[in-house]
């Protein structure tokens, strides 16, 4: 077959892996380090991968770097929780605070395609009011972008990924029918539906980025259920098998196993390129513009690690806010036992959802949340059971034998932005000699109230659905946001509506770290919509000589 993707870069010698064929290749245009390319993009996930495609399609020269390997799902992905840990950012990070965030699988990726390669495919739009939550709902901060504009970009990304979803989505302003039909419910999703109906709440098949019919070289989903460990059949529409092949076709270059350690700036406070580690040595790529898309930990880390005498507190940090307002979404759950065999490992884990509490404002706390069906595989399930119930020994071994009868629902909630939750630099260095990130986090009182409310509601719904032996998973968090927030005032934000740094005009940050508020739904679709918008804005700015 072909080489070990960790051993040496695959995207080299004028070609890149063809993700749709075992051992396959596609031609790729390459640039020399000394060529001043239009855009050096750091990260190839939902933000960077999407931008690479759109900027290349608009005729810009692009080199996109990823610290991780370039996989071909068909030959590299096992159906196995342990083996697929290779998709995660497993380099050291120090976590601390009242509620330390467990990093790794749930919130970071280190592979071409980023964490979309192992995301659960849940593709939701923000509630419109969230873009102006300060003005319309009285909490958090307003985005410098309005929902009507975002709605257009959501349309575009849903088409680009052939999202499978219902004909009519029950919440929010009208939206077009989803491009592909919804997936059938599994038994776990039916329990969610039953619970919602008993409580008088709407529910719907979840809009998912896994195809329900053939699409190009991607086959329909086969319901193997290992989605969160990489899709080995290419049904999942991640950046790896959508925007990245598009980017390469349009002339972009992807560099795998290429860790960017520092952004270089000149005496005029303009970025001149990036220092990156590849093939065992540090190199420098010249670029007219730099886009950082490393997500809410690596993006601020890179800006902080790029400090100079002129930028003592890190690059783009005139506001002092780089690394601040870190958010993570509450991901608590309620689980129990069904009298029926559920076998929740079959199919995508979250085939049904209710967004009821995102659209009902009769609550005594700020923010909203949704909940969805679950299908944890054995290792994750064992972790949930042991951490939530404190059991071990014979009791644990017997409890695990109920695996095929377990069922549950899990929230994705809105955490309030707080300046005290941060990403900073630790004393510890990583294998590249770069200071690692220190992630400090604690829930606010409002977050705790939201979590309590969600746990109560989820528990009631499962009880109503006839589920017994209920227990709560009170400790869990997932998607990140914040740390490089966008805004319309340079004193209170790091980037503007176009994801452009207020301080360094040819430096952009485009990923989940720009979120001023994190919303109560999974963020990937919003990250991609912002990336599409940023590409259009860059084109407009370039056309009038502003880039």
């Amino acid at each position, binding site marked *: 077959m072909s080489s070990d993707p960790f051993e040496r870069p695959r995207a080299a010698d004028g070609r890149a892996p063809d993700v749709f064929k075992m051992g396959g290749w596609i031609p790729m245009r390459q640039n020399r380090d000394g060529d001043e390319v239009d855009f050096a993009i750091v990260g190839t996930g939902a933000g960077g991968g999407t931008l690479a495609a759109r900027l290349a399609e608009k005729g810009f020269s692009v080199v996109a770097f990823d610290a991780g390997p370039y996989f071909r799902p068909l030959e590299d992905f096992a159906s196995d929780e342990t083996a697929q840990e290779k998709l995660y950012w497993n380099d050291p990070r120090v976590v601390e605070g009242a509620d330390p965030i467990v990093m790794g699988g749930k919130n970071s990726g280190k592979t071409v395609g980023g964490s979309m390669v192992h995301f659960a495919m849940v593709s939701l739009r923000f509630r419109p009011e969230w873009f102006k939550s300060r003005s319309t709902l009285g909490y958090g901060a307003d985005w410098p972008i309005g929902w009507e504009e975002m709605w257009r970009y959501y349309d575009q990304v849903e088409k680009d990924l052939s999202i499978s979803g219902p004909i009519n989505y029950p919440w929010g302003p009208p939206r077009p029918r989803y491009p592909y039909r919804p997936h059938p419910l599994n038994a776990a999703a039916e329990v969610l539906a039953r619970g919602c109906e008993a409580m008088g709440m709407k529910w719907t098949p979840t809009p998912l980025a896994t195809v329900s019919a053939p699409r190009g070289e991607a086959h329909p989903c086969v319901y193997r259920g290992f989605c969160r460990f990489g899709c080995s059949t290419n049904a999942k529409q991640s950046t790896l098998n959508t925007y990245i092949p598009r980017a390469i076709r349009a002339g972009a270059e992807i560099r795998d196993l290429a860790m960017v350690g520092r952004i270089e700036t000149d005496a005029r406070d303009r970025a001149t390129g990036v220092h990156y580690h590849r093939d065992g040595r540090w190199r420098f790529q010249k670029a007219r513009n730099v886009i950082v898309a490393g997500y809410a930990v690596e993006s601020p880390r890179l800006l902080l690690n790029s400090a100079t005498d002129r930028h003592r507190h890190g690059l783009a940090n005139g506001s002092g806010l780089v690394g601040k307002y870190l958010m993570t979404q509450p991901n608590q759950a309620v689980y129990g036992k069904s009298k029926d065999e*559920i076998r929740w490992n079959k199919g995508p884990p979250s085939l049904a959802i209710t967004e009821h509490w995102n659209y009902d404002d009769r609550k005594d706390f700020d923010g909203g949340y949704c909940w969805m069906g679950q299908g944890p595989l054995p290792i994750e399930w064992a972790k949930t059971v042991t951490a939530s119930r404190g059991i071990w020994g014979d009791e644990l071994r017997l409890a695990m034998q109920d695996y095929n009868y377990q069922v549950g629902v899990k929230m994705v909630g809105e955490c309030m932005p707080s300046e005290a939750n941060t990403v900073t630099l630790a004393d510890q260095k990583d294998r590249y000699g770069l200071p690692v990130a220190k992630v400090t986090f604690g829930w606010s009182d409002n977050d705790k109230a939201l979590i309590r409310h969600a746990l109560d509601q989820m528990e009631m719904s499962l009880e109503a659905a006839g589920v017994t032996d209920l227990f709560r998973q009170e400790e869990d968090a997932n998607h990140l946001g914040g740390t490089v927030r966008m805004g319309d005032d340079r004193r209170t934000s790091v980037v503007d509506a176009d994801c452009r740094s207020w301080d360094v005009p040819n430096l952009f940050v485009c990923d989940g770290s720009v979120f001023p508020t994190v919303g109560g739904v999974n963020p990937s679709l919003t990250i991609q919509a912002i990336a599409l918008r940023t590409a259009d804005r860059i084109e407009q700015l370039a056309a009038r000589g502003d880039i």
Partner: protein
Amino acid sequence: MTERSFPGYDVLDKRDTPSWNDATRDAIDERLKVPREPRFFSSDEFATLEAVCGRILPQPADRADPVPIAAYVDAKIFSGQLDGYRFDKLPPQGEAWRIGLAALDHEARDRHGARFRDLGRADRDGILRDMQQGRLEGDHWKGMPLKLFFTKRVVHDVTDAYYGHPTAWSEIGFGGPASPRGYVRMDKNRRDPWEAAEGKPGEEERALKENRHVV
């Protein structure tokens, strides 16, 4: 609680079926070849580690080839594979385990005048339970927060190893690897012919027969 059974079901029977792709076969073959001798821990530490694993996840006495849990813990640390995060209050994985294992022996000597591995089940469980509740103290713990170490290191590592093993998948009736075949019957109380059949009371014979054909 009673033991469920999936008579005759072995996930490994599906190794050469369309439920396993080459990448899966490589990964599991490699896992089953884990060296049984420690490479990170000393043989003394390893014996204590095995005694801990045996209580966190006691395996049936009649199991011919028990899952070598301690060997997986050792192999992970030896290979330098990281978790992607470290609680600021805990030392790195290998160091935390070394401190913990030495401290368990210390507790065992103080309490019972014997090494941890030489204690009976109830005495071992007593010490582990006190560790889980954070009720142990002394310089030998080197300031490690016990509850955190117990939940996020000890139980975490032991369950990672055990429930990543085909023997455990067969024990809980999990279908195991599923690529490229996947699944068809997603409704409640439906099983694809290549899934485990449970030997519910009165159905043991049928389950045994069905589990011979999960390929």
